[in-house]
């Protein structure tokens, strides 16, 4: 009696196994080497990630139409978003704190709608004030704060997150709600 069901059982077991293994084979390294697993952090919370503590301590927005916006030279219909992040390096790799790449993401719930790279090379007259560092600084191995700044269109939504990618931690990356 059992013998009649052996082929059916074989298909039931082997089919999902084949699909699973093939998927892993083909897509595994794709997802592994990309920031594809966000670690979401609520607004203002501190998080331990990659042996280092991260916390957003300040967020500020400057509209292009405001006086400071004009001083900075922001293009019409844009705004400058500056984020201050406190970094407390606990575990160093080769004596250096982690290097991160920052981008700003416009969210709708869990979905990323759009993202912007930082405005380091943008044609504007802005730079973080001392003692803020400009982005992640691996040479600094004790507690420090850095500024990340972005120029975004003024039709960007309210729900923004700062995304920090540390290459050693991929595919996980930090998504700090702002």
């Amino acid at each position, binding site marked *: 009696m059992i013998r009649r069901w052996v082929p059916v059982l074989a298909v039931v077991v082997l089919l999902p196994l084949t699909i699973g293994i093939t998927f892993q084979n083909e897509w595994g390294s794709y997802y592994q080497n990309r920031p594809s697993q966000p670690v979401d952090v609520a607004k203002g919370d501190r998080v331990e990630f990659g042996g280092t503590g991260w916390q957003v301590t300040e967020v500020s927005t400057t509209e292009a139409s405001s006086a400071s916006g004009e001083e900075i030279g922001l*293009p019409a219909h844009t705004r400058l978003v500056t984020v201050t992040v406190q970094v407390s390096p606990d575990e160093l790799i080769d004596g250096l704190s982690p290097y991160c790449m920052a*981008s700003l993401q416009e969210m709708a719930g869990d979905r990323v*709608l*759009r*993202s912007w790279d930082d405005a380091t090379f943008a*044609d504007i007259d802005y730079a973080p004030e001392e003692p803020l560092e400009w982005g992640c600084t691996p040479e600094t191995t004790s507690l420090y704060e850095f500024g990340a700044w972005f*120029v975004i269109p003024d039709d*960007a939504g309210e729900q923004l997150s700062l995304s920090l990618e540390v290459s050693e931690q991929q595919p996980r990356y930090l998504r700090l709600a702002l």
Partner: protein
Amino acid sequence: MNLRHVANGALLAVILAVAAVVQHTSPGDGGWQQPIEVTGTVGDRVEGRNIAATVWSAQVAREVQTSDWTGQTTGIWVVVDVSAEAVVDEFAARLGTAQLVIGDETFSASERPDLDTVYRNSLSVGIPTRGPLFFEIPTDALGKARLQLGIDSDPRLDSLLVIPLDLSQLEVRDSATANDVQWGAE
């Protein structure tokens, strides 16, 4: 029994016919890698996956000028005023493909103006960059053209914006001056 054979034969013939149709209509090697075209007209905002552009105007001139360069040619210049922006992310987002297709000839935008052309400029999400594209073409090529714009220098497998331009309708000027490239302009 005979009916079953006939039915099998007929089914086989149908399957073979369908297979032949599928084989002949499937895109070939190049076909499935074609760019995904999005067509628009001058003045419209044309949007692809990660590039959106508006073509404002086109001019034809024997000599062109920007603030830092004068362009002379043995052919003729087509200057296109365009705004371009990225749509979803800024990863490798630049105006990497800018071509004029006229008949069976393809012309690429000129890199001669260096920084005074928006060709190969990096693009920002939601913030347009406006500037000129310059094309050097033979004098007898002023006909119906397709302007093709894309993010990467290899337009395959991603959006390609296509805007038709009728160059034969444009007055041939002796010289044309183009504006500088502006980030954040309309």
